[in-house]
């Protein structure tokens, strides 16, 4: 398992930990597809932001934070996808408050497949 060659040198940082545990992410489709798990780096978006964070995906450790995200930014997606991260999926680091975590997936990982449980927000 490895990270893509075109990521910045030293990214992810050494203090990122092997991916582990339940995480939540807003998605636009049910079941979620690859487009729901593309990073800013993948899409060439937000080029003026931190180059290493652009290579990761934002997830939450708690469902309630994903629910709040939807209420704050409804256009991000009306489904909450739950995934169970394992070390073979990449590395993570808490990068925000309160449970915001950045997940840097290994290149070979089928990201959407890790999030089979999807719930529509009502």
């Amino acid at each position: 398992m490895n990270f893509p060659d075109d990521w910045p040198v030293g990214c992810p940082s050494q203090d990122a930990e092997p991916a582990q545990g339940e995480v939540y992410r807003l998605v636009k489709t049910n079941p979620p597809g690859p487009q729901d798990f593309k990073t800013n780096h993948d899409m060439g978006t937000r080029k003026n932001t931190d180059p290493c964070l652009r290579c990761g995906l934002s997830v939450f450790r708690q469902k309630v934070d994903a629910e709040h995200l939807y209420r704050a930014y409804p256009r991000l997606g009306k489904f909450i996808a739950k995934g169970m991260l394992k070390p073979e999926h990449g590395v993570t680091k808490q990068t925000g408050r309160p449970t915001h975590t950045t997940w840097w997936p290994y290149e070979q990982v089928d990201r959407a497949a890790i999030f089979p449980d999807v719930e529509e927000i009502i």
Partner: protein
Amino acid sequence: MWSIPGRPIKFEHLKALQPLQVLYDFDGPRTFTFLDQENELYLAHWCDEESDRVRYIAVPFSEGLLTRLEHGQMSLREALDQPRVWVLEVDQEGQVQSGWRVNLSDLPEDVLPRPGTLLLPSLENEPLSG
């Protein structure tokens, strides 16, 4: 993307949306403050995007309003409900490409934060501070 119900304006005093303080980040800054070229403070709130452009609702802001927003004394919707409201469209380098003067009430409901939603989920479980 949705048609913006407002009047196109020139934004000569605002070339780029460079976050001054990121208040909420998810796959990049979503809500943040920024300064215009005259060092006037604004609040920007992500509302939609496509592959080549990102839309933000932007309003003139103040340190006092910022404190209230950060302490959960004001919801995101209330923070955006200011006398002057713009929708700004920026490219993926953060450069402002277009701007519209709008009324918040004219915007599609699903590009606005739900009424009562605070900046952070943790604030919604706390008694009001300050």
